[in-house]
């Protein structure tokens, strides 16, 4: 029964029996694992605040080849997100990050890029507080979809293959882009009319330009700084739709996040 210590982010916990927790955590070196933390809900547990969602910890655990669940021994807190709770929306955003990660990450497959994505977004949230919520969740959603391999071309029509526009220099003749539930990419206005895509939404040229910038710029250095809830809301809706159709379930935190 080898003892391991992994740098990890706690994704979520489920109560088990009277005082135990089942913990889903994303390790840097082994990917997403699940384990049992005995007596974790008792006041003097060896886990302290370390098992709250998205705590950044060094987790000590025992792993048996034959068992799906590892046994958690203890954890050492590197960074806690506890202080972000004082902002309600930031708290919901953390739950959203945890839920999306839990849904998208496969078991026991390390992903250094996803791990770094989470750390970068958490750091941005911490630095910017409630102000940072919208760029953080938008950036995270875009990259989470991209790292999962599902991000379609944002400037090509899925229907006819035409170029939607050059997002870098939107002009008057720029094609409009639309998306709808269960559809893997964007379509142009022409294809939308011919396929009768009535229940579709537009992804604005502005949001597509933001997405293009996010794919090459760290979250803390985006050119736009005056984000509010309406900024790139269409992009988030598109990305949440992509995530939901791939994991084949609704994200419970997404509507709470977008609640006015």
């Amino acid at each position, binding site marked *: 029964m080898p003892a391991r210590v992994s740098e990890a982010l706690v994704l*979520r916990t489920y109560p088990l*029996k*009277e005082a135990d927790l089942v913990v889903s955590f994303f390790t840097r070196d082994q990917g997403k694992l699940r384990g049992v933390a005995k007596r974790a809900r008792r*006041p*003097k547990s*060896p886990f*302290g*605040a*370390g098992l*709250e*969602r998205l705590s950044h910890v060094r987790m000590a655990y025992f792993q048996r080849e034959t068992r799906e669940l590892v046994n958690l021994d203890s954890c*050492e*807190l590197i960074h*806690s*997100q*506890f202080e972000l*709770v*004082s*902002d*309600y929306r930031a*708290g*919901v955003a953390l*739950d*959203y990050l*945890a*839920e999306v990660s839990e849904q998208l990450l496969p078991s026991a497959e390390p992903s250094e890029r996803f791990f770094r994505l989470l750390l970068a977004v958490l750091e941005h949230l911490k630095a910017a507080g409630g102000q940072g919520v919208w760029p953080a969740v938008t950036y995270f959603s875009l990259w989470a979809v991209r790292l999962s391999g599902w991000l379609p071309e944002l400037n090509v029509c899925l229907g006819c293959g035409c170029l939607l526009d050059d997002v870098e220099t939107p002009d008057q003749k720029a094609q409009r882009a639309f998306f709808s539930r269960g559809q893997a990419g964007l379509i142009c206005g022409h294809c939308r009319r011919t396929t009768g895509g009535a229940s579709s939404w537009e992804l604005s040229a502005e949001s597509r330009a933001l997405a293009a910038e996010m794919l090459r710029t760290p979250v803390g250095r985006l050119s736009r700084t005056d984000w509010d809830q309406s900024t790139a809301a269409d992009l988030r809706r598109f990305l949440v739709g992509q995530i939901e159709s791939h994991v084949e379930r609704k994200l*419970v*935190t997404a509507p*709470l*996040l977008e*609640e006015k």
Partner: protein
Amino acid sequence: MPDFAEPLARLINEFKRLPGIGQKSAQRIAFHLLRAGREEAEHLSQAILDVKDKLGFCALCNNISDSELCQFCRDPNRDPKVVCVVEEPNGIVGIETTRQYEGRYHVLHGALSPLRGIGPESLKIKGLVERIGKGEIEEVIIATNPNVEGEATAVYLARLLKPLGVKVSRIGMGIPVGSDLEFADEVTISKAMEGRREM
């Protein structure tokens, strides 16, 4: 697991589903009931059914109650000006064991947890706002659990209730009595520092 006669196996299985009861304890209880008289078994089964049939929630504070108002809301010796907010009815049990609190309660029946799909609408907050609106309450003590959900709930409630003109306080969080400072993590210690008091 040994082979028991079907009704006995069924009883053991039912007990095993209860919190804190494993195979051994379930067997002990089942055999105890097997040996006991029919009357004892009837008392037990009736008590279980009564809990389900005769208990409801207090119309004022949502505590478990067998009448319209619970024992605390009925008690004229409890101070109606102070209300302690807990997540679940069993939170009241913990506070009552101190025998130091003489105010009343309000049970939310949960805590904010977007991950579990629980938003403000899912909690019993409206009744609390109405109680404050009637003007009798002066202080609200928020005793939600010392974890992310409980803290998020406390922050949300404080924002909502303070403008209504009541004093809002939060129970202290920090180092458990009997433990060693050396083993506490940064969150626990910083919460303990936040909640320090003058001596």
